């Protein structure tokens, strides 16, 4: 083979390779996105993106309880989505396993990077690098039925600020009738109670995990015991419907909407539900109080990340960056009653004059989120130690046994 032939072949090869990306550009990029099924505005975001861009996103909605299992299996099988909206507490588990694309360089270029909700940014950080940014902010708080408060002779403008005041209010409302109850909890739903019961402990200065999340403090922190006693009293005195004890979360948000429940722990995702679907429900919002006052909230919601292995990192980031820009933040997020991801946008025309939204948004200031790769095993697993401990303490009244079991199983899981 002579030199000319070699050069000819080489140039042919070069031509083919240079032509490849050009050919790829002609085809609009197709991306897949996964989100857990909860009342966030993801569908609207994707619809608007698809209408205005060449690249198209196909959204798959996954039941919340199945998300980690399905995502884990997809990643293990080498076929993850291009974009994933992940319950923020799972980010450490996925980032530490090397399953998310490092987006530090992109995040650095965002002019508003510092005003993105801190809890979400914090959970998206692993070994100093960014792996996720916020996409849905969801703090926990308590909703109360103003009509029932008034009927029971309580002042709806001064909602309870301590556990005792909450109990008194529940008792007063319970006395209104056979089918009227002071409170609601979904005691067969582990995640619901991480979201709405943990803040009672935090607001009183206690915690179930040590500050560096390295060990369980259930047995040594007296506040944990008192909080369990508080909920046990609610159950023993019949201040919640009996069915609450076996509710696996199906009625977590809707039980309160029925109008016969005085108070219930909930989150932002429920506000738009109440406002849109139950216009007659006259309700207010207050922060989850500590034993003697104070306030706390579970800084929940979703982060958005790019799973490792996708070919469309650049385009996926273009979508993510757009979702955080001002127009969708106001016109899709705030307009639908969802909290904007950038703190400076919380003051917006849609939230002005709506106390409930302002109180709900301000819950973020007292928001707290456990950062541990074993979060799912500890708190969210339906068969995990968290729910078992709560049920034994609150429904069975065996607080000592529950604390001992909780401490032991938490420690076992955290030690791997």
């Amino acid at each position, binding site marked *: 083979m002579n030199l000319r032939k070699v050069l000819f072949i080489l140039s042919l090869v070069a031509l083919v390779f240079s032509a490849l990306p050009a050919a790829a550009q002609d085809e609009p990029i197709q991306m897949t996105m996964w989100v857990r099924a909860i009342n966030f505005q993801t569908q609207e975001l994707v619809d608007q993106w698809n209408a205005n861009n060449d690249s198209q996103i196909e959204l798959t909605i996954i039941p919340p309880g199945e998300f980690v299992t399905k995502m884990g299996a997809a990643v293990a099988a080498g076929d993850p989505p291009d974009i994933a909206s992940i319950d923020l507490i799972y980010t450490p588990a996925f980032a530490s*396993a090397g399953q998310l694309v490092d987006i530090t360089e992109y995040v650095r270029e965002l002019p508003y990077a510092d005003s993105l909700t801190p809890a979400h940014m914090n959970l998206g950080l692993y070994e100093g690098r960014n792996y996720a940014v916020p996409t849905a902010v969801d703090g926990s708080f308590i909703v109360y039925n103003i009509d029932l408060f008034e009927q029971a002779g309580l002042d709806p403008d001064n909602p309870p600020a301590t556990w005792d005041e909450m109990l008194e209010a529940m008792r007063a409302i319970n006395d209104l009738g056979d089918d009227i109850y002071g409170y609601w909890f979904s005691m*067969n739903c582990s995640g619901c109670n991480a979201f709405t019961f943990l803040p009672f402990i935090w607001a009183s200065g206690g915690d179930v995990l040590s500050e560096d999340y390295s060990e369980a403090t259930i047995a040594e922190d007296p506040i944990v015991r008192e909080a369990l006693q508080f909920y046990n009293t609610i159950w023993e005195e019949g201040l919640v419907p009996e069915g609450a004890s076996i509710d696996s979360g199906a009625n977590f948000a809707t039980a309160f909407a029925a109008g016969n429940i005085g108070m219930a722990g909930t989150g932002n995702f429920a506000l738009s539900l109440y406002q849109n679907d139950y216009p007659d429900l006259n309700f207010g919002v207050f922060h989850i109080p500590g034993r003697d006052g104070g306030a706390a909230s579970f800084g929940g919601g979703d982060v958005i990340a790019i799973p490792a292995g996708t070919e469309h990192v650049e385009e996926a980031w273009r979508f993510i960056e757009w979702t955080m820009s001002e127009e969708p933040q106001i016109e899709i997020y705030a307009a639908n009653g969802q909290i904007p991801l950038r703190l400076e946008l919380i003051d917006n025309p849609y939230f002005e004059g709506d106390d409930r939204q302002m109180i709900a948004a301000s819950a973020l200031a007292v928001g707290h989120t456990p950062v541990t790769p074993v979060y*799912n095993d500890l708190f969210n*697993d339906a068969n995990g130690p968290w729910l078992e401990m709560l049920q*034994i303490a609150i429904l*069975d009244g065996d607080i000592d046994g529950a604390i001992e079991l909780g401490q032991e199983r938490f420690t076992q899981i955290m030690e791997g």
Partner: protein
Amino acid sequence: MSIPPNTLNLSWTQRRKLTGLLFVLPTVAFVTVFFIIPLLMTVYMSFHDWPLFGERAFTGLKNYSELGKDRQYLKSLDFTFRYTLLVTPPIFALGFILASLVRRNLRFIGIFRTIFFLPVVIGLGVSSLLWVWMLDDRIGIFNKILLDLNLVPKAQLFLGRPNTAMNVIILSVVWKTVGFTMILLLAGLQAIPDELYESAEVDGAGYFRKLFYITLPLMRRFIALALILSVIGSVLAFDQFYIMTRGGPRNSTISIVYWIFNNSFTYFKMGYGSAMSIVLLGILVALTGAQFYVLRERE
């Protein structure tokens, strides 16, 4: 008519053997791909720290030694065997009664056989959901009937209390599977020639003598088959607990397969899940061997 030429130049016996081999080949391939390879894979995984994703590491027998320290594993073993012991007798007693009822070829007997067998055809997942609704405290038919008959003061949370949860799940499984046992036992009953009963009656044997000296001994093989299938099914139970109670209340209904599923796909500990599966396989082989031995045909 053309017979393919004997291109390989084989003798008649060799050709016969080759033909036989070709006939079983699909089955051999199927068993290899869907049973033997996964089994070997499971054994291999059980010696590793094998997360669903991320780094894998060889850990030798560590997964097996951890089994003894796993409180829930022991609890699940205990629960699974208690469940098997409780669910098997009613399935057999009821299956035998039903089989005796539909044994004779009377008019319309096919309708009854079909009715009794129908629940077997429904998927276990579907039937479990059906029972969840029937047992519901607000919309369920059971509470409606009990309340209307004044048998209970208020609606019962059947799946919310450890003792009743187990009982109602057993009830649902008996309803679901008794038809299958009935069919197996029916085949056994119908295989017994009527002459035996007739001559026993001539000798003055009553119902129970006929039952213990003719029916049961001659049904030994059918009972063994039904028992082994039923016990294996009960030890491997998963769907009904996953759907009806999610392992609750207070984690009291987590069967062993449920715990294997949890470890493998919720906690991502595939290696540990594999080790538990291998131990369970050993237990099942031993149990089945024991049943074969007890119910073997005596010379």
